[in-house]
């Protein structure tokens, strides 16, 4: 039984409901055996962050996320993908991003979620600016070396391999 892989992409300022997305993905489908999800939150480890501002490139953000989702469907037999990314100002503790992947088996669902997050981090046009609570210092967040390294994992192996 070959079913479609519905893809939902949203780039919006407001918060999202992961449980509702998971429920919608699996509704009426008995072929889905595995749903992996990832939620990225606004951290404030040092207690110095008053807010995080997320700038994005309207149009390209959605397009790039759609390309990444389509790439994932080429690598794994997926049965549903949801990618939600917020922009604008958010507080520590708030959700920023969610990726949900459904498949028959756990391997595909988990690997695709990992893959989408790696590409999203390095290729989706979003930029974080930290507003510090002391004074009015603002800083653009630097790209992490680890994120570029994470991306390479997916090029070295074959399709669906790390």
């Amino acid at each position, binding site marked *: 039984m070959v079913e479609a892989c519905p893809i939902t992409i949203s780039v919006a300022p407001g918060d999202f409901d992961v449980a509702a997305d998971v429920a919608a993905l699996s509704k009426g489908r008995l072929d889905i055996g595995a749903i992996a999800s990832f939620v990225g939150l606004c951290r404030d480890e040092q207690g110095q962050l008053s807010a995080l501002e997320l700038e994005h*490139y309207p149009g*390209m953000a959605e397009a790039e996320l759609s390309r990444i989702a389509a790439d994932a469907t080429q690598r794994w037999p997926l049965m549903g993908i949801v990618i939600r990314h917020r922009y604008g100002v958010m507080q520590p503790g708030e959700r920023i991003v969610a990726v949900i992947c459904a498949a028959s088996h756990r391997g595909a669902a988990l690997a695709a979620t990992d893959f989408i997050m790696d590409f999203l981090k390095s*290729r989706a*046009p*979003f930029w974080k600016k930290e507003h510090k609570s002391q004074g009015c210092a603002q800083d*653009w967040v630097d790209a992490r070396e680890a994120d570029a390294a994470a991306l390479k994992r997916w090029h070295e192996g074959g399709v669906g391999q790390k």
Partner: protein
Amino acid sequence: MRIVYFAWVRERIGRAEEELDLPDAVRSVDDVIDFLVARGEDYAHAFSARKSIRAALDKAHVHSTALIAGARELAFFPPMTGG
């Protein structure tokens, strides 16, 4: 051609977008950067760490060697930090 800037590239240049008439000799993304840098200090500052600036043509990533012919929108921005 419409040029758009994001994050600290936008802040350094002091604008989010502009419409530019580019000379015929400006053919690649690299050529556009050279053209912009020659326009003034703010541009030179924005592109000073040139290797870390990313570009997109019509909302798709491109290398700086890409030709701009036919594209309507060129974007410059720092490495992405979403997610």
